[in-house]
């Protein structure tokens, strides 16, 4: 140990930590954030996936007139004492619970299954169910990463068209906007660069600015495609995103923060030798 290393360690020890909030206060704040995020409609920028850099918008989960999923099913029925059961397959129990409970229905799921992906539900989506009655959720093995060989991912384009990726094993997709998590089924790409008058960048900034209460897209994640061992997020001007870019053992990668106006335009997948095997958007 050199004297510099020792002096640095001593420096750390000598710094008095500023007073911090209690665990209870931090948890309260976390709960408030969670509640806010459940209630709000959101705008999201995400990246990666089959179409390349994506600008996405979630549907409004809160007003009951637009379902959280873009399946076209309504969450309301004619009988005021019944509710149409929402389609929560593919979500985690943690994500589905507030959607179901907000309708006045109850959730029946195995204990400890909050992170599990819902593979089946009873009654089926769209079935009218009396308020207070439970929706029973069947949950997949917790060890399986979400959306790897998972269900169809659906979403909505910024221009309103519905988006579907059938083979979600290749490119799972989730995003967080500021404090707001967006489930894989809620987000929608895809502004293909050149195919839309709005560039991905402009679309991203536009979606961000729709919701001034939110900060920025702070977490984006997707799964590596087969054959890829690494990923690089690049700006058109050559800068690459290194801050917080992580590839997890599940082959999910994520990066944070992606600030509005600081969104990387290109996702480059590389193999173990560092050679590029794919990029989105592809080089025109």
């Amino acid at each position: 140990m050199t004297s510099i290393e020792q002096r640095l360690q001593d420096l750390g020890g000598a710094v008095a930590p500023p007073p911090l909030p209690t665990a209870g206060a931090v948890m309260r704040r976390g709960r408030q954030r969670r509640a806010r995020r459940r209630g709000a409609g959101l705008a999201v920028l995400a990246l990666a996936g089959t179409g390349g850099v994506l600008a996405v918008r979630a549907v409004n989960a809160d007003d009951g007139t637009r379902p959280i999923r873009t399946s076209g099913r309504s969450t309301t029925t004619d009988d005021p004492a019944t509710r149409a059961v929402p389609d929560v397959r593919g979500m985690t129990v943690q994500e589905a619970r507030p959607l179901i409970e907000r309708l006045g229905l109850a959730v029946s799921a195995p204990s400890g299954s909050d992170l599990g992906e819902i593979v089946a539900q009873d009654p089926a989506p769209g079935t009218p169910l009396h308020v207070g009655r439970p929706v029973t959720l069947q949950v997949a093995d917790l060890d399986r990463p979400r959306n790897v060989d998972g269900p169809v991912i659906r979403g909505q384009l910024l221009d309103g068209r519905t988006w579907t990726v059938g083979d979600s094993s290749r490119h799972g997709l989730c995003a967080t906007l500021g404090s707001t998590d967006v489930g894989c089924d809620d987000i929608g790409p895809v502004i293909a660069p050149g195919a839309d008058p709005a560039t991905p960048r402009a679309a991203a900034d536009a979606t961000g600015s729709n919701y001034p209460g939110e900060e920025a897209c702070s977490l984006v994640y997707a799964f590596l495609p087969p054959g890829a061992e690494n990923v690089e997020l690049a700006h058109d001007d050559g800068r690459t995103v290194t801050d917080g870019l992580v590839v997890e053992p599940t082959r999910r990668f994520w990066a944070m923060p992606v600030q509005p106006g600081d969104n990387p335009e290109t996702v480059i997948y590389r193999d173990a030798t560092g050679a590029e095997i794919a990029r989105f958007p592809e080089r025109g």
Partner: protein
Amino acid sequence: LVEPGGIEFSRWYTDERDRLVRSLLVIGGDPEGARDAVAEAFSRAYERWGRVSAMASPTGWVYRVALNELRRRERRRRIESRLLGRRSSPQHAAPPDVDPELWLAVAALPAREREVIVLRYVADLREREVGAALGISEGAASAALVSARRRLARALDASDEKEASAP
């Protein structure tokens, strides 16, 4: 009423917060910013505790979020001070009981080197963990560490000589 995971979270927070806030304080020099970034990062962790607690390294995650939050605040502060015509980057004074010469030398390091050296020696993370917290490879973290140590040694030597030659 204790939520699922609440006890686990609160233990984790209590164990990790001081090390993290000290590190951010040395990196940014600003006690208030360090405190806010730590509180923000942990409240985000609790917001999505189901997911964060299942990660390979929740601590790595919270370091990353806190560092990003610290940088975000610093950027905003710089923009504000520019808009208000203030001088940017006020030099935060060394806290009491801290070696002022070393404090200044660390503050003078380039940002990445400062982060690396603080995470390694103040937060006491391994090089691999430092890399993960900064989103860089272990090799890059280790190279930045070497460079930072060299720069610190030069800075401290220079000030030793100045002291020695002072009348």
